[in-house]
């Protein structure tokens, strides 16, 4: 168990203790404030180099990370696979070595293979590796910003500060995660964060979208979706990738919506204070109806805006905590 990510890589939320997670959430509060200033920049990582390596397409997450690094005054090297030599068969190891030769302090990595972040951290042990999503395995910053968003909103409702509340809002909180758990790295990171912070997590999905060993996970499988919706304080919807919903795992997108979509009718059965979340990008009309997205219970915009402060907190803790070099 890792008690703090200061000076370390962030590969998986499975490895972080409650203290480590709370440290990141608390640090992110400061960066929320920084993001409200007219000059959204602090010199904390001035002179440091952060490389963003996205082997999988993702404009939103990459921009979020790069913005975070720039607001910390770090220099950003950005590698989008399409325009790089990686497509021509250069291996992961060689790509890293090339970039490393330029002297990087941290790399943010997204890759379609599970474990890629861990492998990279072994090739370049002196570099902080931040996992931006590896295959089906983990997406730690998404799990963190989701937890942060929940704490932020629940604290606002009670007129307290998230910072002072620690994990109080999570203890006994009822969180329902719906959709393709089996293929979702976001689900794995979310569940790790929520369970560690003390929440009660249930999952609802068609049988084929649950992993075989779900019985060993720190969650309960909901047998009745509508009962689970009535139970939940927070409903987290996962994206159903169209290739999964075309008959191999689930007969069709319309059947998925029929059994597990958060339709307007189902959304009406939710309690008024229940939060609706989605890591994005959303398939409107599949896992969630358009009108439900636009309702006030849906806090997707907050999740998106919390992405930058959380990533700033992660970069700051992992990079600034290292014991190398002093700059003026």
């Amino acid at each position, binding site marked *: 168990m890792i008690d703090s990510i200061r000076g370390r890589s962030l590969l998986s939320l499975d490895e972080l203790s409650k203290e480590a997670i709370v440290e990141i959430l608390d640090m992110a509060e400061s960066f929320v404030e920084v993001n409200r200033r007219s000059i959204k920049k602090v010199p904390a990582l001035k002179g440091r180099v952060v490389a963003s390596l996205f082997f999988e397409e993702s404009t939103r997450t990459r921009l979020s990370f790069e913005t975070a690094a720039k607001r910390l005054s770090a220099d950003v090297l950005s590698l989008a696979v399409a325009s790089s030599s990686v497509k021509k068969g250069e291996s992961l190891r060689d790509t890293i070595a090339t970039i490393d030769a330029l002297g990087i302090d941290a790399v943010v990595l997204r890759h379609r293979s599970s474990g890629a972040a861990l492998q990279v951290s072994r090739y370049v042990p002196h570099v902080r590796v931040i996992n931006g999503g590896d295959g089906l395995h983990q997406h730690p910053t998404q799990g963190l910003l989701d937890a942060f968003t929940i704490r932020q909103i629940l604290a606002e409702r009670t007129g307290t500060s998230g910072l002072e509340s620690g994990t109080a809002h999570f203890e006994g909180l009822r969180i329902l995660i719906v959709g393709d758990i089996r293929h979702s790295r976001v689900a794995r990171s979310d569940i790790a964060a929520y369970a560690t912070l003390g929440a009660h997590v249930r999952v609802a999905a*068609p*049988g*084929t979208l649950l992993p075989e060993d779900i019985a060993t996970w720190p969650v309960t499988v909901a*047998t009745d979706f509508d009962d689970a919706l009535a139970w939940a304080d927070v409903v987290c919807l996962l994206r159903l990738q169209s290739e999964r919903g*075309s*008959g*191999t*795992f*689930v*007969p*069709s997108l*319309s*059947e998925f919506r*029929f*059994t597990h979509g958060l339709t307007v009718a189902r959304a009406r059965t939710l309690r008024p204070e229940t939060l609706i979340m989605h890591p994005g990008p959303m398939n409107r009309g599949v896992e969630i109806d358009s009108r439900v997205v636009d309702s006030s219970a849906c806090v997707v915009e907050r999740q998106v805006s919390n992405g930058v402060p959380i990533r700033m907190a992660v970069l700051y803790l992992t990079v600034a905590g290292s014991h190398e070099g002093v700059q003026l």
Partner: protein
Amino acid sequence: MSDIVLRQGLVVGESASNLGDVLIVDGRIAEVGPSIDAPSGATEIDARDCWIGPGFVDLHTHLREPGREAAEDIDSGARAGALGGYTALVAMPNTEPALDNVAMVGYVLERGARSALDIAVAGAITQGRRGELLAPMAEMAALGVRLFTDDGVGVQDPSMMRRALTYAKPLGVRLAQHCEDELLAASGTMNESSFSSHLGLVGRPALAEELMVLRDIELVRLTGAPLHFLHLSTERSVALVAAARGEGLPVTCEVAPHHFTLDESACATYDSVFKVHPPLRTAGDVAALRAALRAGVVDAVATDHAPHAPELKDLAFDEAPAGMLGLEHAASLTAEALGGQADPQRFFQLLSRGPAFIAQLRHGDARVRHSGHGGALARGEDANIVVFDPGVTWTVDRHELASKSRNTPYDGRTMHGRVRATIAKGHLVVSDGILT
């Protein structure tokens, strides 16, 4: 709907049988007793020397509608079923187009609602029954479908079957499998043995069926989902399923009358009426299946009623389509197989109560549209009842069938036992052995 009273038959309950009368009022059983005062105007049915029991439920009927209405349609199939003592039929999905979506399932349910019997639908497991992509089982289940099968063929790809079982399990429905490995069975037309070799016909080995039975038992073990085995034809298949059930796995099985009555030697005449998948097996298999029926090892008798237009069955053995009729003769053949001291409890368990459980058509099941079947013959139950005379003998004439088709393998055969009356959905549809 007029009142009906059945007089002095052996009323076969779930655990005990008693001589008596049954009164049906407004489509429900109003009273069961040793001697009942019937209201005036009630139709009287003489049930002396007969068994009175819950109407039969066929888990496996090919009604051919839509697509092959020349061979059979929902109405003609229902009439054939009524004559055979059936009050509910489960229509197989290998129609044209297949019953793999709500539109087609809804069509058959609508048409079936207007027929004499309760017509339930088995939806396809995969789109087009091609074995590649899952069919919308949840949407079909919302219409009341409780059984899913690609019958005609089995799901060949084990990973697909595994996913289908995993998907079906939380829906509370049951998958059913036609067990035959396509690659092993290949172009075979009858059982593989020295018979087929002698006749010069390519054989379908017993292993093609038994291997898939083994495979699917293990998939049930892995996924925990229930599975029903369709038309098991060999001694070993039945033994495998019985052993699996003994281990507590949620498996059930059916056997078809032709598999416990006829053996591969019938194919010697090259008459394609004896061509069926899975094929007629050895004499040893037939004996074993009959013993299994008597011992209670088999959960249900199901007809696999497969009508084919005459011109198709007149083709050469290897060119003709496989399948034979069964609705009108299943009960008689079952009574005969159970032997001279046939136990009426076992008879109704195999033909009615067992299948009603598997099809989720019992009174206690959550039925979306159908009435209750396979009951205890208790007051209040829906009137789906058959009066069966186990003692009468008669001869089959293939030209005297209610079915539109003629492909029965029992033409000229002497039958022991016959349906005297059938009450379906509260109406008297067969009386004195003929359609009303």
